[in-house]
């Protein structure tokens, strides 16, 4: 009788054996069991890792956590939005009243660990497969570079963090893993970057625009050293980039951020989060969402909505630009014309301006590492290590000359820093130049914390900054799941 049963099932359902009948494989999804075999698979996995830049916990499409934690938490910008139930998290950042349940911390944590997991998946599996060695090396270098960058952000935002260097496949494994000391995290970051700087390509073709180069790895490593106050190492590493002469400043400040500046022509930006309009889920909102909240104006030049008032420049930032600094007019508009023709005095960032687009569909890349930053970091490292020297002052002067629309490489007695500039003067000037040069690029908070200036600067703005504010709280979601995490002081 059983045979009869099976016979019927064979007829109707194509049943061959129980085991086969019950084995069903996804037809519209790749699985971890059948992926990671070819060079193309690894490339696809790496693209997934790069896509982490667009995670809401990093830069998102223009309002990711790093925008808030890097800029709005400082004296550079605030949030031009009504204080409502939907803006509580953002205003905590502006007001320095951080709560552990704030989604922006959670997103930052999740986003960076997703990126780390994506790079771990590549690094775990690369040794076991064979394809073109050069490509394999490049992929390893990119994965290590990205992992280092994600950990570097984490350790600066949160201090000691969980250290995971292989893909986690036990759903409960993360619930007991404690936090590694800061120096262990930095050891991993440095190791990854030292490997990466040696195996990443020297040049990136236009077809690969967006991928990490050797120089990006060196710039990041320089920043890692600088952050740890390893000034000698930092100066040496950054000098390698300057000496290589592969990267250079764009003559015109505005051109750095223009969508029309081609990758091949832009030798200043060393790594950027890549955006592209056209409603393919890859557009940027660094300009359109940063225009004044709910405001419409013919000035804005985009359709389908109004801005959210993200990253509204503070009066303090606006006042910080000296007269004649072209970076002010490139970076900030002070007012707009309303639909009824009146002038509304509400400032908004125009650094990433692109007109004629749909809201949130900008092509402008968001710079993560650029040569101007390298020059300023180099000057800072030298200044802190041994005081100003000619090379350090020249690095800063190039930035200053450009900001006055002067030829970058032609000394100019009027604006150049004198050879006699003191360590303290240069330190103060560097703080200002970094602020103005890199405004809205999510550098300010990291700069102020690195130079131990955050609390003083914020207090001077009347903000209730506390010493513990140099780290953000570990997200409540994670501390609830894992009692071994503990919490940063003050939260």
């Amino acid at each position, binding site marked *: 009788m059983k045979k009869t049963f099976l016979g019927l099932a064979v007829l109707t359902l194509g049943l061959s054996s129980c085991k086969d009948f019950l084995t069903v494989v996804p037809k519209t999804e*790749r699985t971890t069991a059948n992926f990671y075999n070819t060079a193309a698979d690894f490339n696809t996995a790496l693209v997934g890792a790069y896509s982490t830049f667009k995670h809401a916990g990093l830069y998102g499409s223009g309002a990711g956590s790093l925008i808030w934690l890097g800029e709005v938490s400082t004296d550079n910008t605030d949030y031009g939005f009504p204080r409502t139930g939907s803006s509580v998290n953002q205003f905590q950042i502006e007001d320095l009243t951080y709560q552990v349940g704030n989604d922006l911390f959670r997103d930052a944590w999740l986003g960076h660990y997703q990126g780390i997991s994506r790079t771990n998946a590549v690094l775990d599996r690369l040794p076991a497969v064979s394809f073109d060695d050069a490509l394999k090396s490049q992929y390893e270098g990119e994965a290590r570079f990205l992992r280092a960058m994600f950990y570097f952000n984490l350790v600066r935002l949160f201090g000691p963090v969980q250290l995971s260097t292989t893909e986690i496949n036990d759903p409960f494994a993360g619930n007991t893993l404690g936090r590694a000391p800061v120096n262990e995290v930095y050891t991993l970051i440095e190791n990854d970057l030292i490997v990466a700087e040696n195996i990443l390509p020297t040049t990136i073709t236009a077809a690969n625009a967006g991928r990490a180069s050797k120089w990006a790895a060196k710039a990041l490593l320089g920043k890692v050293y600088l952050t740890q106050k390893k000034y000698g190492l930092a100066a040496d590493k950054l000098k390698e980039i300057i000496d290589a002469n592969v990267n250079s400043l764009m003559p015109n400040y505005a051109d750095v951020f223009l969508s029309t500046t081609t990758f091949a022509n832009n030798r200043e930006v060393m790594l950027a989060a890549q955006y592209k309009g056209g409603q393919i889920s890859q557009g940027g909102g660094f300009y359109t969402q940063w225009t004044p909240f709910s405001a419409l104006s013919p000035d804005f030049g985009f359709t389908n909505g109004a801005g959210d008032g993200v990253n509204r420049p503070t009066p303090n930032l606006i006042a910080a630009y000296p007269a004649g600094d072209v970076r002010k007019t490139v970076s900030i508009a002070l007012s707009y014309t309303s639909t009824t023709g009146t002038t509304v005095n509400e400032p908004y960032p125009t650094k990433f301006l692109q007109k004629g687009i749909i809201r949130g569909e900008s092509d402008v890349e968001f710079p993560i590492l650029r040569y101007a930053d390298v020059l300023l970091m180099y000057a800072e490292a030298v200044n802190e290590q041994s005081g100003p020297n000619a090379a350090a002052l020249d690095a800063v002067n190039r930035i200053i000359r450009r900001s006055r629309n002067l030829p970058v490489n032609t000394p100019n007695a009027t604006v150049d820093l004198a050879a006699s500039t003191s360590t303290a003067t240069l330190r103060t000037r560097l703080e200002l130049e970094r602020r103005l040069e890199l405004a809205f690029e999510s550098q300010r908070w990291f700069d102020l914390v690195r130079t131990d200036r955050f609390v003083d600067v914020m207090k001077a703005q009347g903000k209730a900054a506390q010493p513990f504010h140099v780290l953000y709280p570990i997200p409540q979601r994670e501390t609830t799941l894992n009692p071994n995490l503990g919490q940063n002081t003050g939260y």
Partner: protein
Amino acid sequence: MAQTPQTISGRVVDDKNQPLPGVTVLVKSTTNGTSTGVDGTFSLTITTENPVLALSYIGYKSQEVPVNGRSQIEVTLAGDQQALKEVVVVGYGTQQKKDLTGAIATVSGQDVTKVPVSGFDQALQGQVAGLQISSSSGAPGGNTNILIRGVGSASSGTSNEPLFVIDGFPVSGSGVGNPLNTINPNDIESIDVLKDASATAIYGSRGSNGVIIVTTKRGKANKSQVGLDVYAGYQEVAKRIDMMNAQEFALFTIDARNNGYLDNVPTGKITDPNSVRPTNFRIPTALLDPASLGEGTDWQDAIFRKARIQSYQVSASGGSDNVRYSVSAGYFDQEGIILNTGLKRYSFRANVDAKASKRLNVGISLLPSYTTQTDLPYSGHYGSLGIIQSALAQPPNVPVYNPDGSYGTTVPTPEPQAVSVQNAVKIANEYKSPSSQFRLLGNTYAEYAILSDLKFRATIGADLNYSRNEVWNPSTLSTAAATGPASAFARRFESINLLNENTLTYQRTFGRHAINFVGGFTAQRETSDVIAITANGFTDDLVPNINGGIITGGVNGGTVPGATGFTQPNSIQEYTILSILARANYVFNEKYLLTATVRRDGSSRFGEDNLWGTFPSASVGWRVSDEAFMKSQRVVNDLKLRASYGLTGNNNIGNYRAIGQLGGSNYILGDALALGQVRTSIANSKLGWETTKQLDLGLDLSLFDSRISLTADVYDRRNTNMLLTVQVAGVTGIGPNGITNPTALVNLGEVQNKGLELALTTRNLVGDFKWTTNSNITFNRNEVLALQSDRDQIFGANTNVTQVGQPIGMFFGRRQLGIFQSDDEARAYRTLPTQAAPNQPAARAGDVKWKDVNNDGVVNDNDREIIGNPNPKYFFGFNNSFAYKAFSLDVLTNGMVGFDIYNSSFFLNNSGVQNGAKYVYDNRWISPSQPGDGRFGRSIRGGVNNNGQYSSQYLFDGSYLRIRTVTLAYTVPREVAQRIGLQGARIFATGANLYTFTKYIGYDPEVSNGSGSQGGDNQLAPRTDFGTYPISRSYTAGVSVSF
């Protein structure tokens, strides 16, 4: 005195001369008895003097027949309409009600058609104890949430819906809208609700949420009938929210802007003109002069309408002893009470049974249907064109139409300080979301009698579904600008669910032992294939479909309002299930009942290390009333005690969940889109079903010749190894970009539902004037017994929490203590005597005061606690039927008591941005002398205290009692009917949802989480009201005639 044994034989028929099988024939005052066979005959050897036969049969009036020396006796039993049907449909067979040891409730087709609705699920509400049904959307064809004995699973990815078995075919929910809409309620003969493990374990890994078996009408031999059933009527919205008029809204807004201004700008004065105020605190120009505004627009008038509903069915049934048929064709047309919404269904049924040979019976059930729906985005934010919120939020000073005939709107906002809401009527007129579904459910069988007691039955069936839906969101419906680029969405869905079942049935009575055995083997495979495509970047509106724009794939589905839930352009899903099953019933002496079942299921959904599960159950029953010691009394005419215990499973975990999957996460490299993949789930080879262990103790009691019938059950249902979606630590890095709560599916945790169900039928009056009451009430207590850890909190939609020691989905947030009556009171609100600042430093008079739960002197996120319970303390149905001669009146009421609803609709916020309820206007805090109701604070926009926090302020008691239907009917007397050539005729008028007694402030207390256009059924975040489609009140009249 003994007498020579005498054998008598006889036949028992019903009043239509049909043989009655299973009638108990007992020699009165003895234990000597038998029951009738399939042809209604019996034979008995009698030794008693002057014997009297006592014949009894559930559903029929008992009768005593003196033998009077006859050897051949013909008895006609009169039907007893009040008693339950004699035969109950159980899984893979039928059983006599009296022999049941499981908890099964039966609803007749007649009761299903008492409520004029599109789907039978809506009609079941209030009819069965333990069956909790809530409509989550009043849209025609809207979803219902169906729970049997509470929420068993705390996993958000897991369905808590029962298994539906339609004419023997276990179906799965698929297609568009509510899959049960495809079945015409008029085609239903009966619905059996299987509740305890004894009844459901035969469905194994799909039985743990209970089983609802739907049986459609089949032909009866020698009983030809042609019928016509028609009803028609209209519907209207059952309740409106009393909103502010234009003048009130203006006053409210001015108040809110002034309060916000003073709060944020300490140097500000209320007299400051707009020019010096930040934009948020400027008063919109249109509202500057409230007195000039008057009533303004009632936007609810604009979108609600009187809507037609009509239903037609023609049917024919009959046949001979060899072939029986029952066929029907139906047309149902229900307009929605919101403009331009509605549902139409064309349904057919063909059931044929034939005797192919002496030993072979064959038959087929065919249920084809074609359903079309026109939808709009109903619930959801007005920014996503949610039409309810758009209508309610729109300032009332805006006209529906401007004098020039164009639509009045606040899009684009004339000023930065004003709200931007699209015209709801324009949305209804210009947004298009049609869908249609063709479904064919067919099941064929062949039954071969190997021996007279042993039958082999094989079935082959298929459930075919083809559906399509489209969305067209034209450029004119931007919520931010005068026009925005149009978007479109298209979806095609196909599923094929194939089933083969093979069972052997053995049924025999040996003396006082009766045995019934069923054993079988089944295999089922379901494959679905959906293509969902989004297009954006339209440059004009000339081609209103995906072809007119740039196809951007399915990944973008969410960017088209109303088209959510599709994450990829193509999704092919497949799953298989293979089973062996057996059930044995044993009855000793008609009094002692034993049932044992077992099913072994293998499913492709489970991990390779855990492919097969076994689900056994056992139950016993004792027919106390058949004991000799009960014979002498006349009070109790039926009493049965039941007990059951067993294991069932829940396999509703979706497909491929045990496999580690990758998903798209693309990026731009070289200025071009590059395909990226990231890990989206963790592989779990041990993933298996959820096991429910259920104990049920039951009692069936009839008193005073069945004038009073009571069925009572207590149950303890425990779901163990729950298919729990656990939060995983961020460090695992699982998930695509944008996931805010990475999770993994594991078997873990336990949830208990324990409860009491009472179903009482009383025949209060039985003379010319008849009055019968059917009532039922259910008390269910839900408690989470274990999760990953006792500290675990699973959040649903940020509003609800599931944690150990509490019911699933409790409301979680700050607890409102009241409203600060003065600035001094706010400043004095301190938990600790030493603290420097008040608990709420920013609070002022009129702001909300929250509890400092952790007593740390600061009110913040750490002060959230459980503030309410979405689960009812009890729910009930109270249904009365009155009959006098040819007239009858049915009144169905039902209700739920003791549960909370969180209303997050804009009409309750105090910010004076969107329009709000008149209640808020009247009851807000204005001054210490006008303190309002203590719930709503001052009107304020951008208040620093942030009064709009998720808190108990927006939590309301949802208890209600609803008059579900009132039906008045007149049955044309048979003589009159026959004179005009009819077999029978009935004329009726029904009012549905006539009134709901409730204090709830929203449209309807029967809300569930209103996500998605059809309303959602997320049991982790239940009863959150965000503007679902309101229910309608309907008035219909109809006629049923048979020829």
